[in-house]
């Protein structure tokens, strides 16, 4: 009797457990945090939950550390300290910040100045990072004043000393470091490094405009939507990404305001001091790493289609999808993704 009861109950238990297990589909483990002025989401796949949570926590900690060092808006950051420093005097800079500054300067040279890590003072004038956000553009004379101040030094406002010395000198009062176009990409790469170190092979990091793919989702690619710039609920393209891919998107639709019928957005053109207007409303770049993708998407947005695509040719392995003001699009042949919005 005892054996029969035990057998029946064990079978019942196994049946219920089996049914429950089958009903629970495999899905990524997703963790969200507020970091770097945006929602950052890390998804992992196929890891025991405890290990995944530990790896993700370390990745978030690393991104926080980078933000604390490189944010222009944090008065205690190393970058803010350099911006407060006296112009014309060499200041010490950490190897890590110097690395990002050097990448930014190199990107700026290739973009013929359309990408500029010295726009801190101009960004302050516009105030897109402030609360409450701006509703009017800064007075024209203040932008003209900023442009005149920059021009006096032929735009050569930032100098780095030799590789071993790790010093930086800001020469121009109109120049302030603003790594908004590249530091988030660096932070994402650091997070990837932490995930790898903890044994994570398959992950997706989504940090606002910066996305990084690592591996796959159980052998299937990560399924990514590219937001329609003029429809907050819609997607313009679908991207199935796997392996080592970074995707960065720059657009005029996240931080902007309308004034007198004109859309003023946060991507500023160093040559005009105004929001960049080169005929594009969204640029997405796929690259082997997030820092390159981050810098390129901003540079291409400012440069526009023709000059932007010419610049892209300097970056092997990088591809782009551009959305024009009229809603049409162009994507380079190697860009992974299919347009779904219509012609």
């Amino acid at each position, binding site marked *: 009797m005892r054996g029969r009861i035990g057998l029946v109950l064990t079978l019942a*238990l196994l049946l219920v457990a089996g049914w429950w297990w089958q009903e629970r589909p495999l899905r990524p483990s997703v963790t*969200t945090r507020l970091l770097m002025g945006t929602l950052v989401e890390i998804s992992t796949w196929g890891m025991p939950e405890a290990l995944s949570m530990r790896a993700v926590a370390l990745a*978030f900690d690393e991104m926080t550390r980078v933000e604390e060092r490189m944010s222009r808006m944090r008065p205690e950051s190393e970058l803010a300290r350099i911006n407060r420093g006296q112009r014309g005097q060499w200041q010490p800079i950490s190897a890590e910040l110097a690395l990002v500054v050097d990448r930014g300067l190199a990107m700026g040279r290739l973009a013929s100045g359309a990408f500029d890590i010295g726009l801190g003072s101009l960004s302050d004038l516009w105030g897109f990072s402030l609360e409450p956000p701006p509703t009017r553009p800064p007075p024209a004379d203040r932008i003209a004043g900023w442009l005149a101040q920059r021009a006096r030094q032929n735009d050569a406002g930032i100098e780095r000393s030799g590789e071993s010395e790790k010093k930086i000198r800001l020469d121009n009062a109109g120049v302030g470091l603003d790594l908004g176009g590249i530091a988030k990409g660096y932070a994402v790469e650091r997070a990837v490094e932490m995930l790898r170190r903890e044994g994570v092979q398959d992950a997706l990091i*989504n940090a606002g405009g910066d996305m990084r793919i690592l591996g796959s*989702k159980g052998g299937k690619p990560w399924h990514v939507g590219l937001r329609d710039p003029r429809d907050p609920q819609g997607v313009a393209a679908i991207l199935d990404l796997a392996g080592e891919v970074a995707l960065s*998107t720059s657009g005029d639709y996240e931080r902007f*305001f309308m004034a007198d019928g004109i859309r003023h957005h946060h991507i500023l053109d160093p040559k005009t001091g105004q929001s960049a207007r080169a005929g594009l409303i969204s640029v997405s770049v796929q690259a082997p790493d997030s820092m390159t993708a981050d810098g390129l998407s901003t540079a291409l947005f400012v440069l526009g289609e023709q000059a932007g695509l010419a610049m892209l040719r300097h970056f092997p392995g990088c591809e782009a999808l551009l959305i024009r003001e009229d809603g049409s699009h162009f994507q380079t042949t190697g860009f992974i993704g299919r347009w779904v919005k219509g012609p």
Partner: protein
Amino acid sequence: MKLWRLALRATNTTDRWVILISALAIAALMVAMMRMPGNRATVYRDNQPILTVAMDRDLTTEVTGRLGPVRIQVEGGRIRLLEYDSPRMIGTRTGWIRDAGGTTACVPCGILIRVEGEPEGTTREFDAVAH
């Protein structure tokens, strides 16, 4: 009742323990299976949990964000952020959230709301949306 007594008479102490433990295990499993995802939400400030809200009754509550008070509304099993007008308030664009795993946030306020539980279905429509 008679049948139950008969069954008890036909078993010894060990049998009863087997029945009790198995019944408890099945009950625990059933509870886990029947647990309704998405029936409460956690509110975070600067990524630290500060409040858990039951979503099965309507209420409006207030938490203190970095820039001042932020109101949170629960209605009909849904939850949303109220009354902070900023393009960086993702809550404004997200509106109501209901499903387990759903998030809404006011970035400048440092406030994030996440509906607890595992998402239903195999996956979301997209693993991520680039913007």
